[in-house]
């Protein structure tokens, strides 16, 4: 039986009817059309489905949409401001931290959540924060540099 849920996604309120066995990632992608959130492994290993739920980055492939009822969600579509790319996204571009781009939404969200908690992280803290996000292209070094670069820009 479908259930009615309320979600606040990227500052917009939605009321949706979902089946209990629909995951949050599927509702974001297929019902709301927010395809910036990716699906890789679907079992919590890769982090490509990362979203920020109630202020914390989580694997949206492991969360049922009904569990997210009443919660506040940020996806990659909510990171960019009216004025253009978020400084973190600029740093990712500047430092060449994006290749195929599949991991990038998750990486950016994990990094953004880190910088919100800890504006001046050291390298180990950066690496830990993105350790649940796999990247098969960049070798991580450029991603770490991008996050470091953004932290420097924003705390200057």
């Amino acid at each position, binding site marked *: 039986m479908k259930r009615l849920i309320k979600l606040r996604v990227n500052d917009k309120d939605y009321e949706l009817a979902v089946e209990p*066995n629909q995951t949050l990632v599927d509702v974001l992608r297929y019902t709301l059309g927010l395809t910036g959130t990716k699906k890789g492994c679907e079992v*919590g290993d890769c982090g490509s489905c990362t979203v920020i739920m109630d202020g914390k980055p989580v694997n949206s492939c492991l*969360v*049922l949409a009904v569990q997210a009822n009443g919660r506040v969600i940020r996806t990659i579509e909510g990171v960019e401001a009216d004025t253009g790319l978020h400084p973190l996204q600029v740093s990712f571009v500047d430092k060449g931290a994006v290749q195929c781009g599949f991991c990038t939404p998750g990486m950016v969200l994990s990094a953004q959540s880190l910088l919100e908690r800890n504006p001046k992280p050291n390298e180990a803290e950066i690496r830990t*924060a993105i*350790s649940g996000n796999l990247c098969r292209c960049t070798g991580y070094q450029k991603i770490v540099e991008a996050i470091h670069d953004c932290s420097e820009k924003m705390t200057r």
Partner: protein
Amino acid sequence: MLLPKFDYHEPATLGEACQVMGDLGQKTKALAGGTDLIVNMKKKILSPACLVYLGRIKEMKKIDSSNGLFKIGAGLTAAEVAEMEEIKNNYSALSRGASCLGSPLIRNLATIAGNLVSARPAADFPPPLMAYGARVVLKSSSGERVVSLDDFFKGPGQTLIAPEEILTEIVLDKLRPFSGAGYIKLGTRQTLEISLVNVAAFVSLDGPDGVIKTARIVLGAVGPVPLRAPSGEKALIGEKPSEALLAKAGEAAAFDSKPIDDYRGSAEYRRAMVDVLTRRALNEAINAARSNLN
């Protein structure tokens, strides 16, 4: 990957949750963080007819220290446990265990209750909790019982929790002065790793330079359930900590372990690592004990 169909309940209180679990019977599963259960359902290993989501129950997210006990709500996530000041300061090995679990994303979902009830032999919560002598509270509509974690695990994925019961709380004793614990996890990488061997150790000294009064050594991933190492523990009692003593305890613990060969490592290697990690965990425990003046 589609999830099988199921009915879904979302009780707001523990009383309501116990009621629902009791009414629905065998084919029901409690859903906590979902990092294990949802994966098993996607892989069609489990297909419960009904899920009861416990994440809205506030009573399961509290900590309480009164009457010489420290009670931890079993609905707290690994990230919450890892960050809690009281736990960092007093139960550092537990905080360490919580911060080793899964990945940062998983830690924001996975709960203590889920980690204990899923009963994976290599899980991160059982060894430190058993080292601190933890008990778990199992509630149902007909009452509650308190079970030592030592007796809780029955085999991989098996515990003595009944289908209608909910694991609501972890109960620890307040640490006495000069007691402390350590936890070490060995894997081939740091994140999303299933331990090759994980060891927790607890000691209580009768003074900063005193002898060991109580010792507990818990070995993970070297048996069907997390194991106490009785001969390792016995070697320590009444003795003053020294390198030679820890070596003796490490060897004895290796003897107590029951590792198997699998694709992650050989039994022989695991046994050797039990020896090394036991010494190191004991060393951490002794340092923690000496600096814990409480």
